[in-house]
């Protein structure tokens, strides 16, 4: 080898900006981690809601993937299925659907999630709202009846009032949160015989923890969701701020209600393990794309999600408010980011 550049540079040598090495994870590995973390919830859905649950999950995932593929085709964009984010969206949407929803409705929700929730904004990373929640809201707005029909496997010793028989091997009954709502609504009635006591829901805490109650596919078992959440935290796929803020604020508001009137308001712990609270805290609110970037912002966002959810549950018309809480806080995420600007180490001086 000679000096002074007389010899051309070796062919294979490349140049690029530093750093020249990188941590071995990618968007895909992050998404795969989320999928792995959802496996316990999927397994529980399959166990409690039988084969139909698995059909619904597969339908949602498949239609999400196909929708993204078609959107990319239409926009002449490179195929983005490799990042697995469509699979995650499909899974989360499926797990937040009622178990008896028809397949065609699941397909509509899933397509809407990806096409309107994500792709029209420019694909992964550009969407403002959580795609799965966008799809679910759309379904709730269009097919309200379907979205509030809760079935539980008939072989479970269900202690909730039966509403109607929907499918041969299942019955439809009120969810603990619907019961809780009834308790709140009837608390000021003159006629004491019509009062619905809140402790009925409290007595079901163990069932709620293990998932032996009515509810969305993946939301019934607190146990399965906790396993997934802990996995994500241990793998450092998510940071603990948002889950802590969501659960902490929800617990606090739930406690206030419980202290004021324990007959009308259910135990705050029951709030935490019922409905979409846990799947929201660990899987939905922590969607990095639609949550704030800074630690301070994450706390504000999490408290917002937990707080709005509980306000809806305790004071609003609906028994459950996770979906609206997440979407509302998604909408203010850019604002939160703007007002939670970081100060560099060593103080903020002009550049």
């Amino acid at each position: 080898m000679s000096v002074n550049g007389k010899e051309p540079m070796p062919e294979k040598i490349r140049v690029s900006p530093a750093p020249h090495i990188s941590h071995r994870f990618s968007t895909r590995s992050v998404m795969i981690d989320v999928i792995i973390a959802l496996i316990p919830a999927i397994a529980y859905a399959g166990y409690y809601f039988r084969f139909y649950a698995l059909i619904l999950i597969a339908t949602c995932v498949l239609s999400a993937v196909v929708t993204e593929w078609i959107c990319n085709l239409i926009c002449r964009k490179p195929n983005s299925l490799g990042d697995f984010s469509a699979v995650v969206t499909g899974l989360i949407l499926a797990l937040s659907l009622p178990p008896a929803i028809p397949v065609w409705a699941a397909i509509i929700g899933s397509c809407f999630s990806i096409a309107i929730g994500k792709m029209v904004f420019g694909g992964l990373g550009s969407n403002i709202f959580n795609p799965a929640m966008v799809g679910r809201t759309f379904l709730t707005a269009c097919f309200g009846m379907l979205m509030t029909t809760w079935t539980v496997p008939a072989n479970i010793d269900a202690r909730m009032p039966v509403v109607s028989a929907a499918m041969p091997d299942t019955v439809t009954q009120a969810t603990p949160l619907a019961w809780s709502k009834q308790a709140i609504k009837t608390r000021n009635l003159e006629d004491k015989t019509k009062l619905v006591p809140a402790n009925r829901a409290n007595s079901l805490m163990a069932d709620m923890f293990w998932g032996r109650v009515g509810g969305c596919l993946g939301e019934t078992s607190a146990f399965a969701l906790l396993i997934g959440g802990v996995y994500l935290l241990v793998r450092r796929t998510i940071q603990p701020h948002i889950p802590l803020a969501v659960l902490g604020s929800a617990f606090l508001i739930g406690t206030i209600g419980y202290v004021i009137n324990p007959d009308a308001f259910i135990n705050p712990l029951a709030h935490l393990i019922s409905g979409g609270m846990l799947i929201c805290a660990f899987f939905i609110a922590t969607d990095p794309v639609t949550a704030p970037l800074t630690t301070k912002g994450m706390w504000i966002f999490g408290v917002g999600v937990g707080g709005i959810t509980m306000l809806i549950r305790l004071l609003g018309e609906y028994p459950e408010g996770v979906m609206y809480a997440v979407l509302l806080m998604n909408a203010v995420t850019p604002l939160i980011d703007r007002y939670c600007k970081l100060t560099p180490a060593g103080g903020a001086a002009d550049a």
Partner: protein
Amino acid sequence: MTVDVKTGRTFPGGVHPPGRKGLTEDSAIQLAPVPKQLSILLSQHLGAVCRPLVAKKEAVKAGQKIGEADAFVSAPVHSSLNGVVKEISLQPHPVLGRTEGIIIDVDAENAAAKQPCANQFSVDFDENQFSDEQILNAVHEAGIVGMGGAGFPTRVKLQPNKANPIKTILVNGCECEPFITCDYRMMLEWSEQVLAGIKLVRKVLKPERLVIGIEDNKPQAMEAMGRAVSKSDGIEVVSLKTKYPQGGERQLIKSIINRDVPTPGIPPMINVLVLNVATVAAIAEAVVFNEPLTHRVVTVTGPGVEQPGNFYVPIGMTVGELIEVCGGLKSDAVKVILGGPMMGISIADLSCPITKTSGAITVLDAKEIGGAKLEMRETACIRCGRCIEVCPMNLNPTKIAHAVKHGLFDVAQDYYQAACIECGCCSYVCPANIELTGYIRTGKIAVARKKKQESK
């Protein structure tokens, strides 16, 4: 003296890249063979470019000053070996692209290559035989600059300032970059010389506290330096958590004395001075033996080079020739980096010379770099916030990078792009493989250019 092996001292943020020091950490510093030619760049430091003192065909001696520093913030350059000036022309420079350099045909018979002089120092070194003025002059005349990478002229740093005196001197023995072991070998083999340099600096600046900071993955260096300072009062050796960029000036200060250097600003503003171990070793040599800075220890390492090792190299030797000394590039080598893999500069032209600030040549293969990084496959930011989590300066790298990408330089400045130390943690950790550090650097350059134009 105290040796404090309590670990855990650290700064917020940072990453843990694989250390990969095993390739060269047991390889003693060996003399590099005499090269055929030298390319001595006239700009090897921050500050004014040197004025050449020699003409074409003129014979030069080893250690002869061949480039004079006319400005205060500058450092002269010297010929590393005996030889004849072949030409003075534009030469490839790792950072500046091309810059003026002096090409010297080395006198192969009588090159007068320097030997390390570490064995002539002892732990009882008495710094009081030299006056402050002698020390400062020697440092300037020897052309000593910060050898850790920045290349700031050391004479300027050592200038005592009555109004704002230096109270703490930190000697940087962290060497947090993966692969590199030159400072480590120096601390092991040249501990007495490093100590002598520290004592000379102490004599000039009279700080209240003097600390040598070493990462806790180098227990042998801790031990060697601990032995060296055992007879000297008031010099501490402290252990720091192994984390990149522990050896960054601001991070080192944060870890040891828990203070933040103002941004923009320099450590003397909070009465601190940071010197690299290689720099203090060069100071000792310059003051005691009047030897200019013409040689330095360079680690040649990485999976892409046949026989990695640590070498005592004449400044001006080309990267290509030094790699040949190590058995040449392996067939699967894809990147030649001047420095380490986190902050080093990848070069295409192997005729780039070793300068005063080049502590290492790292040659990486495709496997070490990783597929996505190699192909520079950048995907959309998923706003995961990992870059913010690891940023040691508490910046918002993704925000700055996106602003730069879209030409919104005022937004980039608004998010304090100027405070970025370009350590590379954000790019290292990014799952979408976005070259955040690269974008931020681009933004800084664009803003500097704009300012220059406006001032015209």
